């Protein structure tokens, strides 16, 4: 699949687990204010950066989502599907969206993993 075809595949894609996350709106600014936290970015931000760098580093081998592709799609999705979210929440949602759009991650698989991780963290 060419880059332009991959890019098109993210357009108009409705991804239920991601839509639900947008609707619940647990964005860092709101959560930080609720708990009196002053850190400007959420604790998962550097790990998200690590994912993007690791994907880009491996892109020559895997053919999956170079930094340029990820940023272009982040720009596009942040102005459309995830325009209600601040940064870096929109960066995270766009990354998940791009990976699902490419078929790297399956939507059902993501939903199951989200539930399993939440159960693990709340155990």
């Amino acid at each position, binding site marked *: 699949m060419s880059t332009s075809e991959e890019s098109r595949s993210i357009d108009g894609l409705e991804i239920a687990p*991601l839509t*639900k*996350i947008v609707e*619940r709106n*647990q*964005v*860092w600014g709101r*959560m*930080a204010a*609720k*708990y*009196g*936290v*002053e850190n400007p970015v*959420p*604790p*998962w931000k*550097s*790990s*998200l*950066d*690590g*994912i993007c*760098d*690791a*994907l*880009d*580093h*491996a892109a020559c081998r*895997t053919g*999956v989502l170079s*930094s*340029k592709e990820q*940023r*272009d799609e982040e*720009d596009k999705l*942040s*102005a*459309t599907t995830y*325009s209600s979210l601040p*940064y870096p*929440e929109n960066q*995270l*949602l766009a*990354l*998940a969206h791009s*990976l699902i759009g490419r078929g*790297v*991650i399956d939507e059902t*698989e*993501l939903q199951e*993993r*989200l539930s399993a*991780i*939440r159960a693990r*963290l*709340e155990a």
Partner: protein
Amino acid sequence: MTEHDHDHDHDRTAAPMVDEITDFEVLEIAVRELCIEKGLFTAEDHRRFTEFTEQIGPTPAAHLVARAWLDPDFKNLALTEPMTASKQVGVDWLEPTGFGTPSDFTAFHILEDTPTLHHVIVCALCSCYPRPILGNSPEWYRTPNYRRRLVRWPREVLAEFGLYLPEDVAIRVEDSNQKHRFMVMPLRPDGTADWDEDQLAAIVTRDCLIGVALPKVGVTTNAITDTRPAMHPAK
């Protein structure tokens, strides 16, 4: 006994934290685990890249500029062999992470301001930034608002950061790309004649190195600016 003249363990010494598991935290873990399981990268790769992003910052660049202000030979080195000069402040562009190169590797250039020429950097294409020596880019640097408008209306955009340049100072916008990264070497401000490197480095903030601010005596933090999402393209 004064108020703090005791071995104390106040009720609360830890900073507050968000005591709730958010969807975004869960999603970040899910994406990471699935990528690792699918063989896109290893947990070790991820840990190292995360460690890299957490330890980088603008301090080496501030010292590079401060040292250049004090030492003409080092300034010449910085302008002619910027990667060698970077190494002398602890940044190796060939191995910025110590184990491989993220997307940053490249040719690095230092742009010297003069009394009649001011530089400012941007990445009109995406958000290329000299991370090994400046740390992660600020949020506004990534916005289409900054990227699209700076190249067309630099004087006006700089004014939005509170930087009003006289008309006789030309502005050169340097557009970064996948292979070329830039930082600005601003002019040393008045009132710093007998300062040492640490004093000078303290006023060379990240924004001065991007070119949206000028170093000033007494200013050691970046400008706080309001940013907003870019306007959506017209339908």
